[in-house]
């Protein structure tokens, strides 16, 4: 894939950006979700509303924030509210159309673990935990997930249910009284996945250019289902690539620009 002119990560971010529309209201996590949302905003979805959990509503940063609370998010926002208001009025209030999450561990039903590897009480690795994710996963009208594929990340059974996806599949959400759609899209560095309408198991619906079924299976810890009509993800356009790369270059320059300080 190295000769196609873009990296798998670039393809992932750009494919994710395409799934967003100008009238979406996105609750944005840091990392790939943040890059995808801002590429969407800078290309085909100029009026998209981006919300970060620090309280910034309708923000339009020139560089990607390192944290969810960087100053530029506030400086470019329509308004900045307190964190309790963010979680009560804006997320719980049902105003978010897309909650955009990453994952350390993911299972085939879109359940996410970012809490621990191993046992909760005696973890092998203590991960950062849920932050906003448990409620983003259930209060957003839909959830998009993005992550690079690996057998360590995409597993048959996650160690901890940080954020509920489709649980055991089927109507598990409804049985818990959760009336939002949950994960409706998974975008990896290799493919685009959507949940089966009945079982809710993530199914590959589109392979990124040059990617094979074997590659997808070799980097996934469960037996992968492929849609009968399997698409190929359109190659990134020049505009998409340039927008993403410019954004990342501006971001890198900005974050290193403060490197003089040594004390923390």
């Amino acid at each position, binding site marked *: 894939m190295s000769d196609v002119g873009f990296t798998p990560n670039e393809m992932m971010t750009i494919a994710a950006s395409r799934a967003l529309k100008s009238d979406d209201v996105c609750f944005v996590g840091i990392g790939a979700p943040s890059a995808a949302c801002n590429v969407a905003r800078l290309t085909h979805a100029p009026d998209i509303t981006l919300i970060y959990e620090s309280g910034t509503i309708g923000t339009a940063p020139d560089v990607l924030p*390192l944290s969810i*609370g960087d100053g530029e998010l506030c400086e470019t926002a329509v308004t900045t509210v307190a964190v309790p208001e963010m979680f009560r009025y804006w997320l719980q209030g049902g105003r978010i159309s897309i909650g955009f999450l990453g994952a350390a561990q993911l299972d085939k039903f879109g359940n996410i673990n970012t809490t621990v590897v191993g046992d909760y009480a005696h973890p092998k690795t203590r991960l*950062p935990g*849920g932050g906003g994710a448990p409620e983003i996963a259930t209060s957003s009208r839909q959830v998009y997930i993005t992550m690079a594929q690996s057998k360590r990340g995409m597993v048959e059974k996650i160690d901890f249910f940080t954020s509920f996806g489709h649980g055991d599949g089927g109507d598990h959400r409804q049985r818990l*009284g959760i009336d939002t759609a949950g994960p409706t899209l998974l975008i990896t560095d290799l493919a685009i996945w959507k949940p089966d309408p009945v079982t809710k198991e993530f199914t590959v619906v589109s392979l990124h250019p040059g990617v094979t079924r074997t590659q997808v299976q070799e980097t996934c810890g469960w037996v992968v289902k492929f849609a009968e009509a399997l698409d190929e993800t359109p190659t990134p356009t020049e505009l998409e690539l340039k927008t993403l790369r410019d954004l990342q270059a501006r971001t890198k320059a900005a974050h290193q620009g*403060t490197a003089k*300080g040594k*004390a*923390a």
Partner: protein
Amino acid sequence: MVKFLPLKEAVAENLHDGETVAFEGFTHLIPTAAAHEAIRQGFRDLTLIRMTPDLIYDQMIGMGMARKVVFSYVGNPGVGLLRRARDAIENGFPRAVEVEEHSHAGMANAYEAGAAGLPCAVFRGYRGAGLASVNPNIKSVTCPFTGEVLAAVPAIRPDVTFIHAQKADRKGNVLVEGIIGIQKEAVLAAKRAVVTVEEVVDNFDLHPNLTVLPSWTIAAISIVPGGSHPSYTHGYYERDNAAYLEWDEIAADRDRFQVWIQKNVIESSAEDFAGRVEHLRKAA
């Protein structure tokens, strides 16, 4: 009545061994200078509360000051894990630390309930989430009108809260602006509040709807320019993102961590913060 005090005295008067304390700041306005003063004064057996316990709690946990941590995201924002906190949770080094873990929504609602004088917060949360089965402080109440089962968590009521803010006026009213996070709730939920500020001005001339904490809600104010470094203070200096990246390496090694603390905390003082943010102030 609020007192203007040097930071050393403000911390000594308001924090004690074994207490429950919140050093709050949601990425913005993190009260680093106050936390470093607490490290210098060597408090023990603290219960540390914070939504996003980043570098300063990594440092306090690494120094063995914490008996328990209450949090919703124990990461280095945008960078990765907190290695001193991991060492304590995974290996009990330098001491075992009890964990009470919530989601951001849970913590935000719990602070709000604390500020509102309620015993608990009620919200729609933790549905299908594993935390509900490992944290006994996540319970439920049933809506008496619809029958919906809602989450309930106890209100957060710290003995003392420390925050950093932009400025105070001479009467001791405090302004917080920009990403205001949970600063107001953390102050109002606490029995006592200590605020470090960039500066004191004669009078505010403010828009009426800004976030102002009246003087009588605050126990002590200390003037510490740069006091939130490597976090930032909106309108004064930018976030030192490089320092966050660097911390990942410092905290990865137990000895390197101790050397860093000795030099940058133990042998330093609140006055050193101003110099640390000089290169982060925007050109006018």
